[in-house]
């Protein structure tokens, strides 16, 4: 129907172009941090100093502090202690850490493993 020489339509096939573009753009922006690994790093804090490793690259390494040996594995964007000669092995039992702010602590060895990066929550109040 014609009004003022204008023929408005509710929906035309070309409408899908802006709508899908907006949808895909939104999804891409949401997934981007996950695709890029998030830029998160693992900070290994010991008496000798702090070493940082990116969480996006898989690796394993051993730490020897205070007579205790810890084997740390970084895989799939998370870090965990797989092996230790400490009888309590709290560090191993903590499991994997991947979110910014999470940490694994071995007080006997004096070793702290902490995930650093952007974002992360200290608390969320709804």
């Amino acid at each position, binding site marked *: *129907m014609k*009004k*003022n*020489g*204008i*023929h*408005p*339509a*509710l*929906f*035309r096939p*070309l*409408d*899908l*172009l*802006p*709508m899908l573009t*907006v*949808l895909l*753009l*939104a*999804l891409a*922006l*949401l997934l981007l941090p996950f695709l890029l690994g998030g830029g998160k790093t693992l900070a290994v804090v010991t008496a000798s100093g702090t070493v940082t490793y990116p969480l996006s690259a898989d690796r394993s390494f051993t730490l020897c502090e205070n007579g205790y040996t810890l084997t740390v594995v970084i895989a799939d964007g998370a870090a965990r202690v797989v092996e230790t000669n400490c009888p309590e092995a709290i560090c191993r039992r903590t499991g994997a850490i991947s979110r910014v702010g999470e940490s694994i602590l071995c007080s006997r060895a004096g070793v702290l493993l902490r995930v650093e990066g952007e974002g992360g929550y200290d608390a969320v109040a709804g």
Partner: protein
Amino acid sequence: MPLPVNRRPVRRLTYSSVLLALALLLSYVESLVPLPLALPGVKLGLPNVAIMLACLHVGRAAGAAVSFLRVLLVALLFGSAASFLFAFFGALLAYTVLWLLGRSPRLGRVGLSVACAAAHGVGQILAGVLLYGIAVVFYLPFLLLAALPFGAICGALLYACERLLPPLRLL
């Protein structure tokens, strides 16, 4: 058959004024609707129906005036300098898209409205980045996702108004 030339300016002024008043009212009405998404800046966008009517049926300049004045008045009456900045950039980008795409016969009202709603979101993020830094970009995907349903609703409302209102005979 459009109105004789000498009567158009008055009619444009009259309709622009009414649509501006409607836009202000709708700004208030939509603030009463509690949206589950507690995201700042996510709104139904009801005033945009009036603004789009102004742009498409009164004139693009008139629509721009209605859009800008609505932002100004809402900020003066209910808002703050910060809310003005957000609204201004949102409206600026949204109206640019409306100006460029509004006359296209190949776009339906839903598509047009969604495009404008998305542009509005981008504008708000831009204002946010200016005020608070790049971290604000985190909200962009959510604003874009909200633009889809709410833009569609506004587009549908616009279409309904266009069908129900008598011809303005201005264009």
